[in-house]
């Protein structure tokens, strides 16, 4: 089984004793999972090289034959390519000869990928096509006679595109992406990717916190109106909005949060809570940033959908983003915002998507606080690996899907995580 072959022995099977979940309902998470190197290494094996599909990028990033993009699955360097026949492929970016990174550029177009060290050359699908002096030179020998190009290619991965989203896996056993997404998530992915998209570029954030804290964050509607004060300061969003909060039924690792406008009474609701964030005095000099043009059946202002372990699909007003989450050690991760629009956008709509980019990303009016929050948790918990968080909001009605005041998705996430990690 490739998964095992690819795994470092000092990791395999090592179930860190540092980690104990005091409850089975996902409501108590030992802080060790956010800082332990052993846990992190185990995640690389059991999650990122396990029975999951990792998001690599958009097909729209590599439209032409030969196009490629360098990225990661977990922290393993991986390249996604479009072969001459138009097929998608992905392989581990490590030369079969002596292990050098083969593809040294972030993106580009190439009919062959040649390792600079000794120029072993691979095709876009990762097959080894030539080895300099393989047959030696004149009477001088080259590679052994039995050396077989076919069995010395790059480590090739299973790849699938789901409506233009490119996923790859190390696993031979996991089912197709549609099945992996499951019955609850599929329709919402389809909602956003119902027609061809164009890639508008990406922005990156590097957060000094564990990658799972970001998954907690995007599964946490409770924080939205409390941490992101832009909402309330400028009257954009309310906890009282019509909500739809849906976990994945298979393993609970995916989820979606939908919110639709509905302003009645909510400022009173806030006043009751005496919440600091409430303020009626401010207004924007240029409110155009908050306009919304209806593009879908329901007029949702927010669609936040996490597809474990590397993807978050987002629609906020008219800005569309596929967020990729890349772990970089127990205490940091990179977040890549892939902005896109639809191929048939008119100029005005395209301009609107760019303008609304101000709402999200590293300087996003309603997103910049998220990495700040995950870092606060990292710093607050690092010395206390044995203590646990308290994740009880909405616990008594765990199955209600019509409220944003809940941590139910986070609890489901941790239950799924324990299963996958065998903790």
């Amino acid at each position: 089984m490739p998964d095992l072959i690819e795994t470092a022995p000092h990791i395999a099977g090592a179930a860190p004793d540092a980690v104990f979940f005091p409850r089975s309902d996902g409501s108590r998470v030992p802080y060790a999972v956010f800082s332990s190197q052993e846990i992190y290494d185990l995640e690389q094996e059991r999650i990122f090289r396990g029975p999951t599909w990792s998001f690599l990028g958009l097909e729209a990033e590599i439209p032409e034959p030969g196009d490629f993009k360098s990225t990661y699955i977990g922290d393993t360097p991986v390249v996604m390519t479009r072969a001459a026949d138009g097929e998608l492929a992905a392989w581990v970016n490590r030369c079969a000869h002596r292990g050098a990174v083969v593809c040294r550029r972030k993106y580009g177009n190439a009919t062959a990928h040649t390792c600079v060290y000794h120029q072993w050359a691979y095709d876009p699908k990762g097959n080894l096509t030539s080895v300099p002096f393989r047959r030696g030179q004149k009477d001088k020998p080259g590679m052994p006679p039995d050396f077989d190009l076919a069995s010395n290619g790059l480590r090739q991965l299973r790849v699938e595109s789901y409506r233009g989203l490119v996923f790859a896996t190390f696993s031979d056993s996991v089912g197709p992406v549609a099945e992996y997404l499951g019955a609850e998530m599929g329709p919402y992915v389809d909602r956003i990717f119902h027609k061809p998209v164009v890639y508008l570029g990406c922005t990156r954030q590097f957060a000094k916190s564990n990658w799972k804290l970001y998954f907690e964050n995007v599964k946490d509607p409770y924080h939205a109106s409390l941490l992101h004060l832009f909402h309330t300061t400028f009257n954009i969003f309310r906890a009282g909005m019509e909500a739809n909060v849906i976990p994945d039924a298979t393993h609970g690792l995916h989820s979606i949060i939908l919110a639709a406008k509905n302003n009645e009474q909510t400022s009173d609701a806030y006043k009751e809570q005496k919440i600091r964030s409430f303020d009626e005095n401010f207004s924007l000099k240029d409110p155009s940033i908050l306009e919304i043009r209806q593009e879908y059946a329901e007029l949702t202002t927010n669609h936040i959908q996490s597809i474990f372990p590397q993807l978050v699909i987002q629609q906020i007003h008219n800005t569309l983003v596929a967020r990729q989450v890349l772990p970089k050690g127990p205490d940091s991760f990179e977040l890549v915002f892939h902005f896109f629009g639809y191929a048939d956008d008119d100029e005005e709509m395209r301009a609107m998507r760019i303008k609304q980019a101000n709402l999200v990303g590293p300087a996003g009016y309603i997103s910049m606080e998220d990495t700040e929050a995950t870092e606060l948790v990292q710093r607050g918990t690092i010395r206390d690996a044995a203590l646990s968080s308290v994740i009880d909001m909405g616990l008594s009605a765990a199955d209600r899907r019509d409220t944003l005041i809940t941590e139910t998705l986070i609890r489901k996430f941790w239950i799924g995580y324990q299963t996958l990690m065998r903790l």
Partner: protein
Amino acid sequence: MDKLLMLRLELAALQDRYISVLDNDRLEEWPTLFVEDCLYEIIPKENYDRGLPAPVIHCDNRRMMEDRVLSLRNANIFAEHTYRHMVSGLELLDVTDGAAGMTSNYLVISTNNEGTSTIYQAGRYIDRVVLTPDGWRYKSKRVVYDTLRVATLLATPI
């Protein structure tokens, strides 16, 4: 004497004032260095080089810049920090009466409230300036940053 050299000196003074405003907590003064109908954009070099539009900040008029300041002062949550900008390598690109294009390198060192200073961002300013009754002002300022991985978040403008 050489008019270009004098212009250079005036525009260097503008750049110096620009970073002094940002680094010494005079954010409200920041939009006043632009004309009303302006462009202020922060965009990663990887997008700029590929002709892709996705920005980190994109203001197509001065009011949007004022809104940004308002939000930073009253709404957004971010860690206390101090910027120090360095600018160097100023080149005038095209000069006409009362207008000019220029480019320069910048470096932003950020210090957190523990007192540790790190390289926050390096990049390039691509500016258009116009002469107004109040002196030189930015018609457009494109901030093209090399440091693609934004550390944690970007609050204070560059």
